[in-house]
């Protein structure tokens, strides 16, 4: 445990040292949010109706901002790190160490995201409280948030194993971002889609960390809804953990340790 805490600590230090990098990252996120906000504003201005689906203009902007802000804590960086390690042959160094690849990666991920996660948790807590939710709702919502974070990490870990089979990882970056923006409901609320599509999409990992989480934070749902999604998220975590282990063991058999 101690070794993973050291990795986590080193990542936190790195975040604090490279402040410029962190500031640029936040500025880029603001820019991405503004783009989506402006397009929805333009749609409402061009539209003669005050409501789109269930969303008034203010509700829509609130939704877009919250859904996109959440993406600050969900990053695809671990996907590319494993690919780089595989292609450079440096993965061997990690494999030789008495550490578990997944836990090491999680410690790094937590370390690189701990500032954002802390700020987000505090904001989420105050946001839910401000809307008059009871303490049980707050508790369930925070549990759901932590589970969603864990599930997302497992999801990117599974995706990262693709690095054993493909040489170029860069095309993944834009496609993962695009899938997350679309299926996570960051471009538009998923419940604007026809019901059958919505029902299917709403239980996928991207929708859980985007659309569902935003619904929870805006107190638009009941306690039972959160518990239902906690259960789905748990199932995803177990399933993804299982898949990760299979893919990792297959990938390691293919790994030559020489780099390219």
């Amino acid at each position: 445990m101690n070794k993973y805490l050291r990795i986590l600590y080193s990542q936190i230090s790195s975040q604090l040292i490279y402040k410029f990098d962190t500031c640029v990252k936040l500025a880029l996120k603001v820019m991405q949010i503004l783009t989506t906000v402006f397009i929805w504003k333009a749609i409402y201005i061009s539209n003669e109706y005050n409501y789109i689906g269930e969303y008034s203009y203010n509700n829509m902007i609130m939704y877009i901002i919250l859904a996109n802000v959440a993406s600050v804590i969900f990053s695809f960086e671990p996907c590319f790190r494993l690919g780089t390690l595989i292609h450079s042959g440096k993965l061997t160094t990690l494999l030789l160490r008495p550490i578990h690849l997944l836990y090491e990666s999680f410690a790094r991920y937590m370390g690189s995201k701990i500032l954002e996660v802390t700020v987000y948790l505090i904001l989420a807590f105050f946001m839910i409280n401000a809307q008059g939710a009871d303490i049980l709702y707050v508790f369930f919502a925070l549990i759901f948030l932590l589970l969603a974070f864990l599930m997302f990490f497992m999801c990117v870990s599974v995706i990262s194993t693709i690095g054993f089979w493909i040489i170029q990882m860069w095309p993944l970056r834009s496609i993962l971002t695009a899938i997350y923006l679309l299926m996570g409901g960051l471009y538009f609320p998923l419940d604007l889609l026809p019901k059958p599509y919505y029902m299917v999409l709403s239980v996928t990992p991207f929708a859980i960390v985007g659309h569902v989480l935003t619904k929870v934070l805006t107190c638009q749902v009941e306690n039972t809804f959160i518990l239902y999604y906690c259960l789905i998220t748990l199932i995803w975590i177990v399933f993804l953990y299982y898949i990760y282990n299979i893919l990792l063991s297959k990938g390691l058999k293919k790994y030559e340790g020489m780099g390219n």
Partner: protein
Amino acid sequence: MNKRLYKVFISQSIQECLVYRSTSIFVALFGIMFFSIEMITGIIYYEYSDTILGWTRNDYFSLICTSNIILSMYQVLFVSAHENLSDDIIEGNLDYVFVRPVKSFWYYALYRLDIPSAVNLVIAIIIQMVIISKSNYYRINIIEYVIFIPFAMMFVFLVNQLMVMFSFWKEKTNKLMGVPESLIDASTRPKVIYPNSIIFFLTWVLPFFTAINGPVEILKGNISVVELVWFIIFLVVLSIIVGMVWKRGLAKYASAN
């Protein structure tokens, strides 16, 4: 750099594409998926309105196709170099380029083509041709549009090159390299949705809107000559700056990093 050397690069890139078939298929597939997601998003936006601040559905899809054409062209020609340059600078791997009797800037920029991205380029071109054929654009505007696209691609290359060269001075520049990507992403939406201050900034200070929105404005016959002239001047100045920064960066480069 000469034609013979570039032919060797093309040949090597094709061979690499065929050797790493699964990678090539994935790259092509990801490109198509990305393009499809952009189109689906457009369909959702236009579910609620026939026009968005004067931009019709056709204009919007034309913008998506145009941005994909520009970005795919950039990816085919330059993305491999940009993906590796930062690491190569930090790890001191540029030595292998300098020992060759060619201009290092162009050698590095052009040494590898990303062939799978060409699939996305072809799809975007076909859809754009269908959109153009269904619209009533003037022939002269279509010709201007075709001429303008390589300039827009050059702009994307130069801006990315400038950003990636920061690695000569700073160690961790990953996020900085995301700046052009984010500005290009913002420019793939109709510029009329933005406040005037942003439109001014991204037209006259850093002309991302001219590069990405510009071709569609040309098709519609809405772009001003002044804006086009300014864009060309900007490109020339940017080329000179990029060349100077490369030379300064090489002076700073230490192969023993």
